[in-house]
């Protein structure tokens, strides 16, 4: 039920945007009660679908006038609760701002609206010799606006970098309703790099309404290899050997035995089901250098104990291999009714250690954990399998997740490589950062979002009267 206080706001929004662009009935709002992070849920009071930047600015001004919280949402694929409407309020959904506004090959950029789905841009660029490099596994669904909010990565970020490395500029509606452009198609705008500061700010500093992205030349050739290993440790050692030899693969992904079975059942690639780990290794670039790189990688893998290294025979086999990898999460449904994908980072040389610890933590909490992740970046994605109808299991999942992430911190890593802090990981921020670090981050937030109405209770622990207090997931949705 919409809270009575918000009825006039909903009516005003209908007047501004038209009935067809506003949802306020509870049954319509249920879709928006959570994103890919399903452990906490809360309905927004109103959902709006702006079609222009000016629409967004009007919504924000209205929310400010009525002291109502508001937050942006793309496709809702966030795995950290970045789109959870804490405290309700108005959710600004960008699925109707989905135009590719310009593609300029001579100057190597494109301009997109935030609701453009990641893969649409690459599809629109087919045949031009260029592509948009960040390719999260959810690229068939996630939006570029959402990618900007979370500074998304993907398998090919090992060589090509994450979203911020490909974002030239943004137009944003600020928390006060003003519209400002930072950066743009031309490099090196004078002053502070606010594009860089806003990318990855998870919708807490500004609402992005237009994005200038860098286009990347397609590699001339590619070699895709599948390394089969009888132990996880041998696989991770291979990773260190490859990188240590000065080869930067375009992608270097790992799947363990637990996930392989599900992926094989879903996609019938022909993965060896008795393997303890497989590495998906891709090198790309000039044809002139690829065969020697491939041979060197095969030699290094065999030296570190690979059972065999296969090469994708043709483009079709390569695509199936990538489909198996990118849709691995979808195959997890075969293993368990619910799952929680974690997102930690360790220095890549610490991968053997963290994977061993994950096995121990899995046993300690009796929670089955399978692994599919961006090994080359040291970015792990342990998938915790459980049944969300069992509250006791959920509690064990949360504890196991925290323990894995704390182990990432003590290994010199981070609690998120690409999914974001959202609401899920707020309680870990105090462990990763000092109160002084968090105070500096709070200063940046206050500069942009002084009232806190924009995306409240996200990313930073709330500052209480006695300093920074920790709020654990589960308590917040009721706020």
């Amino acid at each position, binding site marked *: 039920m919409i809270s009575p206080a918000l009825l006039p706001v909903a009516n005003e929004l209908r007047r501004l945007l038209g009935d067809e662009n506003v949802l306020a009935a509870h049954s319509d709002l249920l879709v928006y009660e959570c994103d890919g992070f399903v452990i906490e849920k809360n309905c927004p009071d109103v959902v709006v679908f702006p079609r222009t930047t000016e629409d967004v600015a009007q919504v924000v001004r209205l929310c400010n006038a009525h002291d109502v919280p508001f937050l942006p949402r793309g496709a809702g694929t966030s795995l950290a609760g970045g789109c959870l409407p804490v405290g309700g309020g108005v959710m600004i959904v960008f699925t109707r701002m989905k135009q590719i506004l310009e593609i300029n090959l*001579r100057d190597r950029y494109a301009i997109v609206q935030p609701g453009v789905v990641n893969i649409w841009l690459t599809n629109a660029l087919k045949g031009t010799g260029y592509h948009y490099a960040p390719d999260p596994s959810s690229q068939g669904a996630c939006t570029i606006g959402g990618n900007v909010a979370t500074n998304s990565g993907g398998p090919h970020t090992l060589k090509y970098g994450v979203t911020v490395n490909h974002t030239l500029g943004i137009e944003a509606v600020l928390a006060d309703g003003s519209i400002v452009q930072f950066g743009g198609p*031309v490099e090196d705008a*004078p002053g502070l790099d*606010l594009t860089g500061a806003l990318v990855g700010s998870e919708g807490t500093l500004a609402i992005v309404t237009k994005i200038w992205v860098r286009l990347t030349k397609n590699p001339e050739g590619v070699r895709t290899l599948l390394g089969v290993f009888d132990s996880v440790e041998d696989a991770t050692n291979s990773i260190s050997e490859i*990188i240590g030899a000065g080869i930067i693969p375009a992608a270097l992904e790992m799947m363990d035995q637990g996930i392989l079975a599900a992926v094989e059942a879903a996609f019938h690639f022909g993965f060896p089901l008795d393997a303890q780990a497989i590495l998906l290794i891709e090198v790309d670039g000039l044809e002139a250098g690829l065969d020697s790189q491939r041979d060197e990688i095969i030699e290094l893998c065999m030296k570190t104990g690979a059972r065999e290294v296969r090469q994708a025979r043709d483009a079709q086999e390569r695509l199936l291999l990538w489909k198996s990898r990118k849709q691995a999460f979808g195959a997890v449904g075969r293993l368990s009714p619910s799952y929680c994908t974690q997102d930690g980072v360790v220095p890549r040389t610490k991968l053997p250690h963290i994977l061993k610890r994950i096995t121990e933590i899995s046993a300690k909490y009796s929670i089955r954990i399978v692994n599919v992740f961006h090994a080359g970046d*040291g*970015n792990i994605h342990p998938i915790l399998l459980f049944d969300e109808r069992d509250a006791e299991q959920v509690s064990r999942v949360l504890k196991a997740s925290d323990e894995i992430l704390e182990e990432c911190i003590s290994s010199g890593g981070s609690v998120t*490589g690409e999914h974001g802090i959202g609401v899920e990981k707020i309680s870990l921020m105090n462990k990763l950062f000092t109160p*002084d670090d968090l105070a500096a981050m709070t200063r940046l937030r206050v500069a942009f979002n002084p009232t806190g109405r924009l995306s409240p209770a996200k990313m930073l622990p709330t500052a209480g009267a006695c300093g920074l207090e920790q709020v654990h997931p589960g308590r917040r949705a009721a706020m």
Partner: protein
Amino acid sequence: MGATMTAKSTAAKSTAAVSQPLPLAETHTPADQAALSAVLADVHARGVAAYPIGGGTSLDFGLTPATPGVGIILTSLKRVIDYPARDMTVTVEAGITLDALSKTLAAERQWLPVEGPQPHVATLGGLMASAWSGPRRYGYGTMRDYVIGMTAVDIRGVPFKAGGRVVKNVAGYDFCKLLTGSLGTLGVISQITLKTRPIPERTAFLVCELPNLEVAERLLAAIIDSRTTPVAVELLSGPMWREHPSLGVLTPGSMGRLVVALEGTTPEVDWMLGQLAAERRELDVPTAHVISGDAATRLWETLNEFPGFPDAPLVLKASVPPSRVTEFIATVQAADPKASVQAHAGNGIVIARFEGFAPGDISSTVLGRLRPAAQLSGGSAIVLSSNVEGWTRQAWWGGIGAAAPWMQKIKQQFDPGNLLNPGRFAYDSTGA
């Protein structure tokens, strides 16, 4: 400005590395981050201005500050904190020189492919604070693409950090980006963690002479479609480029050269040289030659140093869309036929060193012709250095438009008293 601009004394600038235009009442050289914190806390308590100084190679970048204050020299913060080469990251103190960093990384066949002038004195912290970049930005990106973690000390002497020591990390706000290019106005950078890259096996240049700018644009557009992957695309024109030990002497009548840098394994570079030569023949462009080995090293040095050469009335850096580079160079040449130009043409960056006009003409040239030309194409133009005095903020930086209030709000949060490098950058806490 205009009539008030006068020639600076050039005596102090003859050794650019140590020239010192800042109004310093005293200087401190803290030995470590704790000492740096103490200096800043003291400065803050006294309410005086603080001027962070690295190798001192870019002290003439930005306006000359008027407020007397304390110079904080960071060259003693030069330790390598952690270099796990297999992780391809390195954590160092910000005062390390670029050469010392290169030497450390080279031992593991790695490097930071971001360039700055005078690497024997220039510091990494200075490179980050000024967001300096060189020709290789086309192939490798800029400083913002390599800083994955940092610690800075705020004006109260309190350290704060962001990022970490892993190559992929989205926890918390990205101060690494915010402080890159902030010119010491938000905090004094004390420690930096970088991503490193493997040093390429071979580097070589293909050089084409350009009869005119029309041919230049044709070649530049073709590089976008080339099968090769250059790491630098430089357009060089004007008197200072006519003769160079590596480039030779420019054929009379040519307007300049296009210099394309290629890096990679030996087979890759050899293939690209052949491929580029073939693509060039299709475009019917005359004389090209290859530069490699020691001659290539010397050419890289000149390409890195050119923007920092002292003693010009004006060195301007314009940013325009890459497709408008040749048009902008024509505007430069019309303003001053004696100007020498280095364009990172693939990125749309044009560095123009002017020689041929009186200080009094600068204002009409910069404000009246060059900057509007850059802005008309959606870009900007800032001054890199000038040996004349009397610059205003607007004249030097050209304004930062609608983003200005947001930069001021950040500054007010981080340095409300406007004590960090006041009066130098494109904005202050009180005005832009």
